[in-house]
């Protein structure tokens, strides 16, 4: 399994879009730092995320989400939260980590 990590807001760069275009079925995606904005409900990326979740599991680093004034109930349904230890678990469970700068 490949873990894709995205740390930029989807409004700033197309990193999230390209990541989701190239991620394969069964891969995991983790949104962190400014990447967490992609996980919130009601943005123009919500449909893209919802569609991606049919094939991939999407996680968000909750401390980064909360730091930006959002709570778990602002997340798009189906996105899973992780803490720092959960991040480490995802990395160790993956064959490779692909960073989308």
């Amino acid at each position: 399994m490949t873990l894709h990590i995205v740390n930029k807001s989807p409004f700033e760069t197309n990193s999230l879009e390209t990541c989701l275009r190239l991620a394969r079925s069964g891969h995991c995606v983790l949104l962190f730092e400014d990447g967490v904005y992609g996980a919130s409900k009601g943005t123009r990326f919500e449909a893209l995320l919802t569609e991606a979740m049919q094939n991939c599991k999407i996680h968000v680093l909750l401390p980064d989400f909360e730091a930006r004034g959002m709570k778990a109930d602002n997340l798009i349904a189906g996105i899973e939260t992780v803490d720092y230890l959960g991040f480490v678990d995802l990395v160790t469970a993956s064959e490779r980590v692909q960073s989308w700068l």
Partner: protein
Amino acid sequence: MEEGGGVTKKFLYVNRKAPYGSIYALESLEVVLIGAAFEQDVSLAFIDDGVYQLKKNQSTDGIGMKNFSPTYNALGDYDINKIYVDKDSLEQRGLSLDDLMNLTYEDENDNYAEKPSISLVNSEELAALMEQQDVVLSF
């Protein structure tokens, strides 16, 4: 296995930034060339604005920066000849293969015939390529 017991791994360098607005492209090229000394199985991918790195006819005389694009021509001499360009990214920017530098290598298994290093790939091919790698380095 290489001399000294080293293991050969598959390395993919993913390039997604345009060449002069940030340091990513130059740094990537430096790392690729340094890494070439370690005789690994290296591939390069150019996606999104990264495709601009391979544009022909770059001329930096007016901006006081080094034009490092000729360095890509040296990659073939370092046995780096698997250069993959995302077709969608190229098309979205109004470019085609003809707009890119003609990067080549000499195939030692074919009487040193000169062959193109660049392949255009679609999303599915690129995704498959990424999944074959031991290490993916992003720039």
